[in-house]
Every structure is written in structure tokens, then in C-alpha cells.
């Protein structure tokens, strides 16, 4: 594993998601995208969220920032944000003005493949400075322009491209602009949803290295969402694994790699080969994720799980936490006791 990752220094909690549930649609046709998700993010931490398509990881990101679009609805739960110098509050109950203030200043978000994340008819500089106009009205035009220069320098984009239009830049450059944009107001948390999935590996490496450097310098937390668990193992301090709308395991990256607890995590780890070491037979995961309109009773994973027993079909295993590790399985405990 390479050492692009700064040493893990879990500070205090900065974001707590508790029992978050999101449905798309209503009643019988409802898709239960998130089902009682619990998640904790610490200051300065890089939390990776891994899962297959449809596991709900992207929904988690938009729901927590209240960017959920119709027909999605948050049915229950709380998203508690802990500012540095004031009491914590629930993001889901913010009024309009407060929400707008909170957005981008405290939490910003970088979407997948900035193909379409930049306004095609506005110049880059305008898209970097409009947040400054709105959130920092005391800044003068010259100041804003100055800051725009600083931001593009941060991500290694040449100055002259400030006055270009998005379609004139390559995919990698656009993604870097998105990152620069996300950092414009110096947020506490940057959420990144599959930021490098659509880019080739070389560009991916560049962007991730740069991002790590920025993190070391500016100290923000990152929520990194991707289906690529191997990437997270390199990058993250902590990893949360999602399946069928629930978090099934959360632990420091090293622990996930060395001693995964949840059978799904084990399956994921077994799905990609290691570059070193003896050749092993790839196990992979049989079956496919459940239809979220008709989630099977009990543990959502039981149909594919090698450990499945009768109790798994009846009862949903709660997410148990101990000692920085959580796992939701009837037969595994974060305290590593042998259960049944």
C-alpha cells in the first residue's frame, strides 16, 4: 500500500448520520434506497464508502446534504453536524436561509465525472467566484479574482484556463476544477461521489495524490464514495461498507483489509486480485443485490451469504459498534467474540 495517505488522526466527530432512511416513490412502489443508515465522520478523517451500484451510497451523499430530488424523500433519521465553535445541529431541520449558508461553507460536494457538473455556458472563473460573491459579500471583485487564481493553482491548472469554458477542458481538468471549486470556501467536509471513476488511471492517480496533499495542508475531512474497494484500502482512514441501503460494516482501513468481519466485505475483498503474493482463486460473489422494492425479510444479504442460517431470514441484524468498529451480522461481533 502506498504512503500517499497522511497518518490517521481521528479528531472529534464532525458529522453523525443516525437512522437515515430514504425512499424513492411511495407506498407499494417505493424503492427503499436507504434503510436506517448509521455513519460517523471525524474531523480530518477520510471516510471511504464502498458498495455496489444500488447500495445507496450516492443517495446517502445527496440525502445528507439535502440535495435529494423528487421522487426521493427522507422518511426518518438525523444528520448532525458539529461545527467547531458552536453547538451541533440537525442538518435536516435547517431553515432555507441557514441551509444555504451551511452549504459549501461547511460541506461541499464533488460529483461523479464532471462532464456535466460545470455550467456549460459560463466561464470557469465565474463558476469559481460565484460562491464567493454569495457567501463572502465583503470580498471585492479583485479579491475574488485573486482567490480564483489561488484555487486553480491549488489543483495545478494553468491560469489562462480561468477564462475558458468547460467544454474547452479535458475530463481530468474539469474534475480538478470541481475540486478547486469545492474548496473555495474552505469547508470542513468534502464529499466526493465517484470522483475518478470516469477517468483513466493515470489522471486518477494525479488527482488523488493532489487531493491527499491538499488534505494534509488544509485539514478537511473527506467522504469518498466509490465501488472500488481496493482504491479505498489505499486511500482511507476508515471504510464503511454498504449493502442494500444499509451500512453493514465500518472500521479503520487496515482492519477491513486484514480482518474483515462482515461476509459481504470478505466477498468484496476476495473479488480483486493482489499484485503480490501467491496466486489465489478469485471467489467473487454469487447472486446479485436485492430489488430494493422488495427487500427480503431479515438480513438483506442472507440469500448470498455463506454463513446464512434460519435466524438471518427472520431478523435484521443491528449494527453493533465497539472500539471503532461496527458490523451488522448475527454471527460476527465487533468485539471479535465468537458468536454461535
Amino acid at each position, binding site marked *: 500500500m502506498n504512503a500517499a495517505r497522511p497518518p490517521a488522526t481521528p479528531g472529534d466527530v464532525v458529522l453523525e448520520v443516525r437512522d437515515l432512511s430514504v425512499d424513492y416513490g411511495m407506498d407499494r412502489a417505493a424503492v427503499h434506497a436507504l434503510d436506517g443508515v448509521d455513519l460517523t465522520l471525524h474531523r480530518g478523517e477520510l471516510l471511504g464508502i464502498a458498495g455496489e451500484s444500488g447500495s445507496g451510497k450516492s443517495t446517502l451523499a445527496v440525502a445528507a446534504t439535502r440535495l435529494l430530488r423528487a421522487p426521493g424523500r427522507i422518511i426518518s433519521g438525523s444528520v448532525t453536524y458539529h461545527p467547531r465553535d458552536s453547538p451541533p445541529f440537525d442538518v435536516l431541520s435547517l431553515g432555507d436561509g441557514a441551509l*444555504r449558508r*451551511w452549504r*459549501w461553507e461547511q460541506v461541499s460536494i464533488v460529483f461523479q465525472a464532471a*462532464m*456535466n457538473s460545470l455550467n456549460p455556458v459560463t466561464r470557469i472563473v465565474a463558476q469559481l467566484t460565484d460562491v464567493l460573491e454569495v457567501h463572502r459579500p465583503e470580498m471585492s471583485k479583485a479579491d475574488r479574482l485573486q482567490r480564483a487564481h489561488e484555487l486553480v493553482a491549488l489543483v495545478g491548472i494553468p491560469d489562462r484556463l480561468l477564462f475558458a469554458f468547460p467544454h474547452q477542458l479535458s475530463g481530468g481538468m474539469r474534475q480538478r476544477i470541481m475540486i478547486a471549486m469545492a474548496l473555495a470556501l474552505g469547508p470542513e467536509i468534502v464529499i466526493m461521489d465517484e470522483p475518478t471513476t470516469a477517468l483513466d488511471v493515470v489522471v486518477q492517480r494525479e488527482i488523488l495524490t493532489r487531493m491527499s496533499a491538499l488534505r494534509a495542508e488544509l485539514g478537511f475531512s473527506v467522504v469518498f464514495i466509490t465501488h472500488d474497494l481496493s482504491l479505498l484500502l489505499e486511500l482511507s482512514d476508515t471504510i464503511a461498507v454498504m449493502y442494500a441501503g444499509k451500512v453493514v460494516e465500518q472500521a479503520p482501513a487496515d482492519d477491513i483489509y486484514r480482518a474483515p468481519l462482515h461476509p459481504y466485505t470478505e466477498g468484496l475483498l476476495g473479488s480483486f486480485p493482489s499484485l503480490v503474493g501467491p496466486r489465489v482463486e478469485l471467489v467473487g460473489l454469487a447472486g446479485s443485490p436485492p430489488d430494493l422494492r422488495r427487500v427480503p425479510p431479515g438480513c438483506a444479504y442472507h440469500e448470498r451469504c455463506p454463513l446464512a442460517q434460519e435466524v438471518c431470514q427472520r431478523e435484521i441484524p443491528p449494527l453493533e459498534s465497539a472500539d471503532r468498529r461496527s458490523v451488522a451480522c448475527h454471527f460476527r461481533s465487533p468485539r471479535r467474540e465468537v458468536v454461535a
Partner: protein
Amino acid sequence: MPGNPVEAQLAHHQGQLTYQATKALEVAFGIHLHESVWAAYGQYWGNVIHGNFGLSFTYFPTPVSTVIARSLPWTLCLVGLSVIIAWVLGTLIGIVAGWRRGGWWDSLIPAGALFQGIPTFWIGLIAVSVFGITLHWLPVSGGYSTNTVPSWTGAFISSALEHGILPALTIIFGSVAANLIGMRNMMVSTMTEDFVLVGEAKGLPRKRVMFRYAARNAILPSVVGFALNLGFVVSGALLVEQVYSYPGIGYVLFQAVGSEDYPLMQAIFLIITLTVLAANIAADIVFVLVDPRTRQGAMA
């Protein structure tokens, strides 16, 4: 093509033209030469370039260019203004209707559908009967009242405006729905784009995201459509002008067809075609100006 203008004039004067007069007419209409069609055609273009469209049969002996110059401004003003107002109104309402999907705003769609299906000239007929005849609020015939003369006086201008209200409202009513629905659908579709979500995520005020992110992109086809529509300004109002006896170029064209006034018809067709072509070119230019993606050259 049917119709001999000299015979038409003969009929007009009830056969009481002398032989010389008939011959003179033939010369004036250029029939005496009995040239080949192509030669005549070539000569026509030669004349056109000099601004000479020939003499009108209907309004004989007024030159065609005078007839057109007299009626074209009426059409341009009436239809031009109406199309602009209809576009602005439809686009603005469409933007808001698209942004605020749901509830009352969505019912604009079936209403718009109804309006799209109503023939514009029929709206005119109804307006004439309701506002003009039953209620006597507004004049319904002509471009100006008969007791004024075209000139730049206050009396004339106010009379012209008064006579223009109903025709203008008719055209606006007929065209606003299409603009509205088109813009609204573009807005709804644009709002699902990622960059609009990013705009919201940035904590920008709603209005800013609505206008500078969503509308600014959604409006592109509308703008091009508007430029193209302007091209049809001249011909589009024909029926409305007929309903209101409005002295525009559509009205004149219709009279021309009725009296087989070929020089006039040809000239009007030429003007209309040129206008449409000009509008198409303008639309292309506008498109390039408004959408930066069409400009050449990548900087990276």
C-alpha cells in the same frame, strides 16, 4: 399562369379603352414584347436590382414598390411587436412554470395545449365580435380610423395604436402557448442536469440558480426559435390581417392573388423569402453567440 393583365384592365374599364390605350397598356405591362419566358425572367431580375418591381395591376398605376412600402411597415410593427411580446411572456412564464413544477403551474400545460389548437384567426373573429361589436371597446377594422391621415401626428399615432391593440392581442394569444410549453419543457429537462444540482449545492440563492444555471441553458432553443419565427413575421399574420382588414402586407397579398396581380405577388413573395432567409442567417449567428460550445478552438 392564368390571367392577362391587359384583359383585366379592359374588364376594369368595361371595354372602353381605345386601341392605342390597349397597346400602351401592353407596353407598360411588358407583354408586347412576346419574349421568351427566360428572357423576361432575366429582365425582371435586372429591374429588381434597381428597385423596380413593376407596376401593380390591382392598384394600377401605382408601382409595386410603393404598394409594398406602404403596407410593409404596418405588418412589421404589428406582427414584430406581437411576436416579441408573445415570446417574452411565454418564455418568462415558461421558466417559472418549469422551475416550480407541481400543483397549479402544471395545469398550464393542458391550458397551453388548448391554446395551441385554437386557430389564431378564430380568436380574432371572437375578439372582433366581443370587444368590437358587442362591447364597442375597440375598433376592429383597418389600421387607423378613417378620419385621420397617415402622418406623424399624435392623433394618427394614437388612432393607429388603438387599431392595433386587438390584432396584437390576437396574435399574442395565439403564439404565447407554444413558447410557454417549449420553454417549460426545456427548463424541466435542464433542471435534471448535474450542474443545476451543483448550483443548489453551492448554497446559491434560488433565483440565481434558476436564471443563471437553468434558464440560461434552457433558453437556447427558444432563442433560435424566436429568430426563425421573426422570419415568418411577414407571412404569418395574413389571416389576422384579413380578419381585421389591417393594411399590412398579408392583406395586400391576398388582394393581389384575388386580382391576379402578378408583379405585386412576385414582389411580396420575394420580400417574404428574403426575410425568412435573413432570419435563418440571424438565427445561426445568434446560436453561435449564445452557446459558447459552438465556438472554435480548445484552449487546453
